[in-house]
């Protein structure tokens, strides 16, 4: 996305090692106001590590995080007030009520008692918890707790919202509500950094996506830009019966197949030209007694992009 909007977040050359694991390896990206940027990558790719450095709770080995040009570090306090941080783990106090949870963090953000009360009431409305505000969080459903958790990042009207897999372990209904919430926030001008390992979420929500694998940002761009990386390649979805792992191994050996990923009850194949290589794939599978029940040739998506870039599936 090329706009004249000033950068809200700028990460430059971020690096972090844990003992012998390089969790984040020279990662740079920027996010503009009103833009939603997704970090898409499998578990262990380094998303949380990046987010922690952006939120100023983890010291990078190298590189800088700037929020509106102001450096963020573990020691700075001022720029942290511009960031709304929603960690991956559900971070609420179960023995406090929703209102108490929110009020505590609002006050920590420096809000006066009166201002905090006003913002808390507003945020309770945004996340749909006004009715249950004075129940303890331990009595909330999982989805409600998630919403409270996200609301805590909004209290101080940050200019950058950082969400680390906010839909993890949430029922589909709550998940949709959360996604709608985030979209609305983006419309209000917030810059949003969003990590996920769900391709669908990244496609639905994010203006731009950074594909992250083994600590490296392997590609970046809008969905259209990323899919264009695939060139003439096609995506084939196969539904198969029987041993999926075996089917995957067989498909991988077909020469025209560039990548294979098991997904649900089927396989996703990345191929050069679907029409040309489909017969070869089907006969190879038939030879090995793999029964194919359905075949679909699809538009490539971000999953395909990931497969193309890494040769592996986003989710195993």
């Amino acid at each position, binding site marked *: 996305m090329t706009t004249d909007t000033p950068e809200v977040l700028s990460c430059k050359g971020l690096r972090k090692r844990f003992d012998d694991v390089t969790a984040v390896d020279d990662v740079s990206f920027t996010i503009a106001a009103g833009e939603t940027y997704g970090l898409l990558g499998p578990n262990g790719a380094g998303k949380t590590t990046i987010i*922690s450095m952006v*939120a*100023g*709770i*983890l*010291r990078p080995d190298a590189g800088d995080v700037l929020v509106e040009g102001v450096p963020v570090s*573990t*020691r700075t*306090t*001022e*720029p*942290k*007030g511009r*960031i709304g*941080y929603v*960690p*991956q*783990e*559900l*971070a*609420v*106090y179960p*023995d*406090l009520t929703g209102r*108490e949870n929110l009020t*505590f*963090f609002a*006050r*920590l*953000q*420096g809000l006066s008692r009166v201002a905090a009360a006003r913002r808390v009431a507003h945020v309770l409305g945004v996340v749909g918890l006004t009715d249950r505000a004075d129940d303890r969080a331990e009595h909330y459903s999982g989805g409600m707790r998630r919403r409270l958790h996200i609301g*805590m990042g909004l209290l101080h009207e940050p200019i950058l919202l950082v969400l680390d897999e906010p839909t993890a372990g949430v029922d589909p209904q709550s998940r949709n509500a959360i996604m709608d919430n985030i979209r609305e926030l983006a419309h209000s001008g917030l810059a949003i950094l969003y990590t996920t390992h769900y391709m669908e979420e990244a496609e639905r929500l994010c203006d731009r996506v950074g594909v992250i694998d083994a600590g490296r940002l392997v590609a970046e761009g809008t969905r259209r830009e990323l899919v264009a990386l695939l060139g003439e390649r096609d995506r084939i979805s196969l539904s198969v019966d029987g041993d999926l792992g075996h089917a995957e191994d067989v498909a991988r050996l077909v020469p025209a197949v560039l990548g294979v990923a098991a997904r649900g009850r089927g396989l996703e194949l990345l191929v050069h030209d679907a029409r040309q290589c489909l017969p070869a794939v089907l006969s190879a599978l038939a030879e090995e007694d793999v029964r194919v029940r359905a075949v679909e040739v699809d538009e490539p998506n971000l999953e395909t992009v990931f497969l193309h870039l890494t040769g592996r599936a986003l989710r195993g």
Partner: protein
Amino acid sequence: MRASLLIAAKDLRQRLRDRSVLVFTLVLPLGLGLVFSLVLGDLADGNDVFRYAVADADGGQVAAVFTHQVLPAASEGGAITVRTASSTQEALRLVDDGDVTAAFILPPAFTARVMAGQEAVIEVVGDVDAPLGTGVARSLAESFTARLTSVRVSVAAALRAGSTRDPARLAAEAASVPDPLRQVEIPASRRELDATTYYAAGMSVFFLFFTVQFGVTSLLDERRAGTLARLLASPIRPLSVLLGKLITSLVVGTVGTAVLVAATSVLMGARWGHPVGVGILVLTGVLAATGVVAVVASLARTSEQAGGWQAVVAISLGALGGAFFPVAQVGGPLAVISLVSPHRWFLRGLADLAGGDVRAVLPSAGALTAFALVGFGTAYLLGRREVRL
């Protein structure tokens, strides 16, 4: 500071909703303190700390100095009471019946032996179940007979110098001269807490090492719950988080102990001593306990682990420091080792305070403060990575 107070206020609200804090600060210490003071109350009880009998089978002048001067002087402070038994048999019976803790027996010819320059011994027969009281009696008797050695020398010298006075009178006079040794004995027995106060204080300081956990150890809970990340991402200094936890510990510890002081005074009749002195000891005691607990917390990975280790540390230091049994009064190496226990200093401070002078608590308060400073310093060095300072 604002952030630390907000964190402490939040913690306290959580702790008040948590029944375990009430159990540890009030129910257990009060219950156990009461049990201990009832069961072990015979050890010493109130003004009537040690009850003795004396039987004078000698009837001579030197024996009379002991029965009519030394013992009455020793009982002046109210630390001991002495009753006169008509015979050795009666004295022994009083001990057997548990009416007295120990009996002094002045054997026949006690005075004569002193006059003749021979060794003279006061027998002390004590209740085996009251080693403390018997020990005090023995030291009273020994300090007197030890003095007789010098009396023998001075009587002999006077006679050689041609004194015409009755040697027995001379000996009695010499024996009754106040001796520094005796001056030490009496304050020593006076500087003791009665059993009720001792166990009330022992249980209070013992449980203090559990209650202060509710502050510093909750840092580990916050880390596991993920809320620590959220705290650290707030626009506050990381040190504020540590300080907030510290304040929580201090408030829970101080309020808990203050309530225990009041409750044991009213319900059990404990006599803690001058409020200012007690206040100084409680505050420094709470600091010391928090320091020790902070070190344990900084070594542990989870709050369960910390809780387990802290229980071991609290029980060890408590036992060593005399929270269950007055270790210091046993003497010997154990009494010396007990000085590594903050519990010991807390109880010692209270015992010193029982003498009436508030300033007497200062050495113990100083020792407790040293525990606190060493604890906080160590915990900071070990734990600062936790909050990424």
